[in-house]
């Protein structure tokens, strides 16, 4: 298969990159790991006339722990994040979700920023970003830097708050707090496939009661979806199997997931309930409190 023709630029600084985007705007696409964009080009679902390669741009591959948060540069590969000690120690939810993305050869090239910017509704990282209330830092030549909270970043099917002239520079993810357990559960047809449904859970327990809970689902809507009703149902409750079952039922209520050849809407709704319950149980077990 031949990709459609395009002009190729490989800038080495962010400034040059932003200038290129400003000049070419809608006509251009950024190329990160290419693990989503190149298939789209091959199938001619995307036909940009200009490709701006981020592969040589300095300053986009940092990964460091700061005050209460971890900053991950957009060009950090999925595999580097997966194997990072900082991520393992401070972002256990991300560490758990990472190996579920595709296959090793995909994660070797695919980037954290690329996955977030691509915003596949079935992808793991956007759901993790929403569950952790991450912030995305974007930059453009005309408007400078801005910080976008995860809840307003994902706007629709493969659609984000990023403007055509903007580069996603980094993600800021709040580091794990004490007394907080996390878990990521998903069901996929085959190992490495995109999830039919994924569930990310963050659970804080204080003196045997649930102090806070955050639940985000992948694969059930056109964006990753927080489940505030289920979260409210958990707050103040004791850690019991019934509380988790009720919350899981609330999380799956009113969902209208897509039906496709991988699974019907009814099956996905069922998966959402089961996976949320499993994730809650595992998050609690990590805190040493079994329901």
């Amino acid at each position: 298969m031949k990709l459609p023709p395009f002009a190729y630029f490989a800038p080495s600084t962010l400034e040059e990159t932003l200038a290129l985007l400003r000049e070419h705007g809608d006509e251009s696409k950024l190329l990160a790991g290419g693990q989503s964009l190149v298939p789209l080009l091959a199938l001619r679902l995307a036909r940009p006339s200009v490709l701006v390669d981020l592969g040589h741009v300095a300053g986009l591959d940092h990964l460091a722990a700061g005050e209460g948060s971890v900053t991950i540069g957009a060009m950090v590969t999925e595999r580097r994040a997966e194997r990072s000690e900082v991520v393992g120690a401070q972002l256990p939810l991300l560490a758990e979700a990472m190996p579920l993305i595709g296959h090793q050869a995909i994660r070797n090239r695919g980037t954290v920023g690329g996955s977030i910017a691509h915003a596949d509704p079935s992808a793991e990282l956007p759901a993790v970003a929403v569950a952790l209330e991450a912030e995305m830092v974007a930059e453009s030549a005309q408007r400078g830097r801005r910080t976008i909270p995860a809840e307003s970043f994902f706007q629709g099917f493969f659609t984000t708050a990023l403007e055509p002239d903007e580069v996603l520079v980094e993600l800021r993810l709040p580091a794990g707090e004490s007394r907080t357990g996390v878990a990521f559960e998903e069901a996929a047809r085959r190992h490495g496939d995109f999830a039919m449904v994924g569930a990310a859970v963050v659970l804080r327990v204080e003196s045997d009661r649930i102090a806070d809970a955050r639940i985000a689902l992948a694969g059930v809507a056109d964006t990753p979806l927080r489940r505030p009703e289920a979260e409210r149902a958990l707050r103040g409750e004791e850690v019991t199997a019934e509380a988790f079952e009720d919350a899981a039922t609330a999380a799956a209520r009113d969902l209208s997931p897509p039906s496709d050849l991988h699974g019907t809407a009814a099956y996905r709704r069922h998966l959402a309930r089961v996976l949320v319950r499993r994730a809650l149980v595992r998050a609690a077990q990590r805190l040493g409190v079994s329901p």
Partner: protein
Amino acid sequence: MSDVVEVSFTVNGVARSVSVEPRKTLADVLREDLGLTGTHLGCEHGVCGACTVLVNGSSARSCLMLGVQAHGAEITTIEGLSVDGELNTLQQAMWESHGFQCGFCTPGFLMQITALLAEEPNPTEAQVREVLSGNLCRCTGYQTIVEGALRAAASARSATATVRGSDLAPKEPA
């Protein structure tokens, strides 16, 4: 028609330079411009793993990389495994395990296994299966491929084994 771009990289230890259209995938550059047709193309959109090569020692699908993205990189293809026409440890083990039938998927499997064994010389069967989950084979049913990978690991470990050809470890990144 887009302009051609000069790409310089190392392929199987040899410095190469080619002028290619930026839209050309690394797989096509290897096959058409360098005549290295051992890298096979199945799906051409990232699903089957037949086109797997090593980029700076890590596995990558060459159908999902542009040739121009390989500028400055060290690429290893299936042609880089044997030395002086002798099978290396992995190739020999795969042969002994009957790890292929038609052979179409084999280059991709061998490159992915090479990356695995460089990182984890003593993998469990579960690790082998996990890493190979991204490579599809229509013939073997996978059992003999997994066995070949484990056999290669065992014979590389065994002090008495005759290690033939190049070492399994990919070359250091440039």
